[in-house]
C-alpha cells in the first residue's frame, strides 16, 4: 500500500505549507514536531496508517489532511502488535 503519511524533517507550525518531494500539498492544520508524521489525505476513524508500505497503526478518530498523526489519535492494529 502507498504511504498515507509523511515524516516532517523539521518542526512545522500550524498554517505553514507541507511540501512532499518538492510539491506543495496543503497547509499543516496543527503544529507538528520534527520527526513526527503528517496525514497526506483525509483519514477516517479505524483506517490503517501505512509507512514503508506497511500498516503501522490504525486511527482512533478522523484526521484531516495536514493533521498530526501520533499516539493521541492512533492505536496499535488489533491482531498485529
Amino acid at each position, binding site marked *: 500500500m502507498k504511504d498515507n503519511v509523511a*515524516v516532517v524533517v523539521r518542526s512545522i507550525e500550524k498554517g505553514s505549507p507541507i511540501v512532499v518531494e518538492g510539491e506543495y500539498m496543503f497547509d499543516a492544520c496543527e503544529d507538528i514536531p520534527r520527526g513526527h508524521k503528517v496525514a497526506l489525505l483525509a483519514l477516517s476513524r479505524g483506517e490503517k496508517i501505512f509507512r514503508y508500505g*506497511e500498516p503501522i497503526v490504525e486511527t482512533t478518530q478522523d484526521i484531516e489532511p495536514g493533521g498530526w498523526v501520533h499516539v493521541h489519535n492512533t492505536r496499535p492494529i488489533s491482531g498485529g502488535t
Partner: protein
Amino acid sequence: MELMGYRRKDGRVGIRNHVLVISSVSCANGVVEAIGRSLPDVVAVVHAYGCGYGSTEDVLKSSRVLTRLADNPNVGAALFIGLGCEVLGAENLSREVNNKPVEILVVQKDGGSSVTTARGIEIASRFLTELSGLERTPAPVSDLIVGLECGGSDTFSGITANPAVGITANRLVTEGATVILSETTEMIGAAHILKHRGATPELGEQVERLINNQEKKVREELGELAGMVIAPGNIEGGLSSITEKSLGCITKAGNSPINEVLDYAHRPTQKGLVIMDTPGYDIDSMAGMVAGGAQIIIFTTGMGSVAGFPAVPVIKVASNTEMFRKMPGDMDINAGTIADGKCSLEDMGQEIFNLVLSVTNGQRTCAEVNRSQPFNYLKQGPTF
C-alpha cells in the same frame, strides 16, 4: 561486477589480509596485548571468557565465535594464545581453522608470560612477512558477505540512513552477494510483516517464530523493563508503535526475499538476503556476523556509534548532518543530506554501494583508521 581480494585455500575471498593474535581465555590476555603493543600491525584480540561456563551451549557458542573469527577470510594467518588449564584451550580452537596458517602458544607450557610473548612476537612477525607477499586478485562481488547493523539510532535513522542502505542492500543482492540482516530484538513488532518476505512459506514461519520467541524472552527476562529494550525513547521522537520502529530498522535490508534464517555465528549457505539471530547489542551482533563469514559491515547510526570490529572494515553511515559534523573522522558517509534535501535516497544508496566497493578494494574506513575494534560476543548462561 568485480572486486580485488585475497583468495583463501577454502575458496572464500578476504578483503583484508590481517594477522590475528587471539587469546583462548581471558587469563592469557596480557600476552596477547603485549604482542599487540610490539607489533601494531597485527590485530590483537582479547575477550572476557574462555572458562567457567555454566552450559555446554555457551562452551560451543564461544568456541564457534573464536574459531570462526580466525577462520574469517579477512584473516590471513592466526596465532592462538592459551593459558593451559582453561576449558576452551588454544589447541582445540586452532584445530577448527583449516584455511590458513595457524599456530598456538600456551603460557603454562611455553615458558611463562615473557618467553611466550617473545615467541609470539617471532611467530606473528613471520606471519606479517609471509602475508605481505600476497597479491589481491579479481573476484566477483557475489563472493561478498555483507553484514548490516544499526546502533544509536535516532528519529532520522528510519528516514535517511536505513532506507538508503536498503537500496544498497538491494543492489548487492542483485550482484549476487549475501546480505545479513541481524538484531532479532530490533525486529520485534514486525514479525507479521517479515513473515511475508520469506522466500518460501516455511522460511516465513521460521522468521515469525524467531521474532516471537525473542519477544517472549525479552518480556520474561525484563518484565516491566521490556519496553526499554523494545522501543527505547521512541514515542517522543515521533514513532507511534513498535511496528513502526522495527520497520525503520529492517528497511536497511531492502525488500529482497529472505532466503535463510541462521543461528548466531553460523555461516550462510544461501546467497541474497538472510537473517541471523543476534542480539541488539552491536558488538555481540557484529561478532555473530563476522564469525558467519561477513567480510564487511555497513553500520547506520544517528547518535554516533564509533565502534568498528577486529579484522573487518565497518562503514559508518550517519543519519543526520548535525552528528556527522559533530564527530569528524568517525563517520564514513552522511545520509543526513537526504533530510537536508540535497541528495535523493536512490543516489545515496548508490553512493554507499560505491563506498562498499572502494572499502572492499582497500580504502580504509574511519573505524580502521581509528583502530576502533571492540570485541565481545553473545554468552547466555551464568558463569561459575
